[in-house]
């Protein structure tokens, strides 16, 4: 595997951060999660809970971290299973115990990379900040991932995905004209921040290979997002056309398509997206619709004409789609060469999407407490060094602390007796 031989000591929690080490693990890096039994990663203990076989658990619903302690086990929090594939191992060490701190420093000394996603300054307070890491591992690559990063006037600010999405323009970019932004109902920037966290890990490794030097790379949840608005940013700053203007954002309407957008399909709140970018797409659409008479209207003869009369055109298209099953319409449109796709929810992706199934998008993985579930990893195929959702060891997400003894034995050469003594002292909690 591509990153085989790279060892990451991983203090990340929640989504942003864990997404980064998930990617590294799927690429073959050895990822060792350092966890706590007294302060477990919140996504280990909050709903939705992975049910016992044959049962349905509690939905995410009104879950918050304040009422998350109701989980009976630190191994049933469902969101943990989204972010902790990649064959991550789990050890529990109390960083606030002097002997725990010493252990963690010993582990830093034998690791290539240290990753974390605590508030700025937390690792320093533990005695595990970059300077202390360097003291035991001079070329360590230290990648911190937190809301506003470690430098700048607002480093004390806290973010969750929706916070960062609001501040960086992502929330604004989802909405219909004349209405407040609808935004995203999930933390897109937990993912994006994590992708750039993985890029940071790789950048640090390349730099170390070239120069022999480590460094601290400071990843915030804001900067990975600023270029995601593409030309909107430049249109405002260069052309003086601010994004906050009447009629914008335009919902699903794009300058590149006409007709284009989401159209009602048969069924309860079912939709299909159609994107006609070219005259060929338009002709394909008409063919799939059975050459309707209204299409002869000369106003629809050119792309510019179709764009200028988009509302009327959309009405005609929706009349056709609303009587059709979204997947059948998608198939017929694609057969006619028209870009089209059903609006799929999570159940659709897991159960009805033949492409994801054929690509092996989901991998069945479980652990000692949880029966195998279809889990996601790195959605990219590398020909000679295939990524694996279970990482180097082809394992499911770890139960809390399952690898403590193995890691201390293998990496630090500790004996069973020494490990038992630490456990009795409360160091491994």
């Amino acid at each position, binding site marked *: 595997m591509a*990153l085989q031989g790279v060892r990451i000591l991983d203090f990340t929690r929640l989504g942003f951060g864990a997404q980064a080490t998930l990617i590294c693990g799927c690429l073959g890096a050895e990822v060792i999660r350092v966890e706590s039994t007294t302060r477990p990663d919140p996504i280990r203990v909050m709903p939705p809970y992975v049910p016992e076989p044959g049962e349905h658990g509690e939905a995410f619903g009104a879950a918050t971290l304040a009422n998350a302690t109701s989980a009976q086990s630190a191994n049933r929090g469902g969101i943990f299973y989204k972010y902790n594939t990649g064959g991550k191992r789990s050890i529990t060490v109390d960083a606030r115990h002097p002997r725990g701190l010493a252990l963690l420093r010993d582990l830093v000394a034998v690791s290539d990379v240290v990753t974390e996603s605590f508030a700025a300054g937390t690792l320093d307070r533990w005695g595990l900040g970059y300077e202390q890491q360097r003291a035991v591992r001079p070329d360590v690559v230290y990648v911190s991932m937190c809301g506003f990063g470690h430098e700048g006037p607002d480093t004390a600010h806290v973010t969750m995905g929706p916070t960062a999405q609001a501040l960086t323009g992502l929330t604004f970019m989802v909405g219909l004209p004349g209405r407040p932004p609808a935004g995203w109902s999930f933390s897109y920037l937990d993912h994006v921040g994590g992708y750039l966290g993985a890029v940071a890990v790789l950048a640090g490794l390349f730099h170390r290979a070239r120069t022999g030097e480590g460094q601290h790379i400071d990843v915030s949840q804001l900067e990975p997002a600023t270029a995601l608005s593409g030309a909107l940013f430049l249109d405002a700053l260069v052309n003086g056309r601010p994004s906050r203007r009447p009629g914008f954002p335009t919902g699903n309407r794009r300058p590149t398509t006409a007709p284009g957008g989401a159209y009602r399909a048969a069924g309860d709140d079912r*939709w299909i997206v159609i994107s006609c970018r070219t005259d060929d797409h338009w002709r394909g659409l008409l063919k799939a619709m059975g050459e309707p008479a209204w299409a002869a209207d000369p106003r629809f003869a050119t792309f510019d004409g179709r764009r200028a009369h988009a509302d009327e055109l959309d009405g005609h298209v929706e009349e056709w789609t609303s009587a059709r099953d979204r997947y059948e319409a998608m198939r017929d449109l694609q057969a006619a060469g028209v870009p089209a796709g059903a609006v799929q929810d999570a159940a659709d992706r897991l159960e009805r999407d033949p492409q994801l199934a054929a690509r092996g998008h989901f991998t069945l993985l479980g652990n000692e407490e949880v029966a195998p579930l279809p889990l996601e990893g790195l959605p990219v195929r590398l020909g000679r060094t295939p990524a694996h959702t279970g990482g180097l060891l082809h394992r499911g997400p770890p139960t809390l602390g399952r690898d403590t003894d193995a890691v201390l034995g293998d990496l630090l050469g500790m004996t069973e007796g020494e490990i038992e003594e630490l456990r009795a002292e409360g160091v491994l909690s």
Partner: protein
Amino acid sequence: MSPSPPLDGVRVLELTDESAEYCGRLLAGLGADVVKIEPPEGSPSRRLEPFLDDEPGPDRSLAFWADNVGKRSVVVPGGPDGDAAVRRLATGADVLVHTLRPAEAAARGLGSEDLEALAPHLVVCALTPFGSTGPWADYEADDLVLMALGGSMAACGYGPGPDGTYDTPPLAAHGEQAWRTAATYAAIAVMAALWWRDRGEDGRGQTIDVSAHECSASMTEWHCMTYLCSGAVHRRGPHPTLTAADGRQVAALNPDFLGPHVFANMLTMLEAEGVAGPLSDPAFADPVHRAANYREVWRAMKRLAEAHDGETLYRLGQSAGLPWGVIRSPDEVAEDAHLRARGHFVELDHPEVGRRVAYPGAPFLAHGSPWRMDRRPPLLGEHTAEVAAEWGVSP
């Protein structure tokens, strides 16, 4: 010696439409020499609006600028001569990123097998809508189609009416987020493949197959897990938002999302602002009581919002440890004092149009190996002769 970026000296050929250009932008920022191969009339993205001063022209597309900053441009002839030129350039490159389907790549002599024989050291990354295999491999898509199939659209939009039915459609974000996610994954995979090549025994590259659909399908957080755990399907609706006195909106999540300690800080702030009302009742110290009476918590937050402008409201929330954020448009982000202090925005000269243009810069701070951001987007064919001389191959 001044620090150099991590991919300094890595040569990347880019033969893509707009769907994968963000990959090359990232690799260029990491220090790679990214050479964009263009036909004589220019890449399709040079014809995308908006244009500088709304006047079309191959060197005036702001969509092209946004995703091609930091690259060089080489023009090759159309047809077989151009494909031969790409093959020659490939022998001198470390990476080829393209957006060709397998059949088209093979027909042009740029298939995996052709390139492996010609340039065994080359890392080839093909980014296509659905990847090179599977029943949908030949299907057509744009970003909106991929946002639909991937699941984010189903989860984005306005909520249902009181009767539970939706009168507005699922919505996709602007900014081509499915393509950008796929392009980011492509950059990660390219880096990993280079890392492996440079440490392996045979120095060989490999072919990377990126399906934008799969990448798009991976970005909805807990939604698959919720379905697997409970059988419930996450449906669309906005996050809670406060409207401030100046009409600006502030994303204001339930404070208990971050843990039980946050409420006490919020209460102190609300009391100092004189809007705490019934929340001062000790019963609200209990998170279970708060959850059951969240309406009162929200009302106090609304009273606070009505007394302040959006920017102040955001900062008041943050002063109490609340993960609040004022909703900004993409361009309003350029005014953020924190990002400016981190040196995030970089101005580049465009002397041919007499402009100095600010771009979003480094996605993270790496002082040892800084982001490279010193080259404005290339004019069409600007570097054809230069690259030929430096690489020792004639396009």
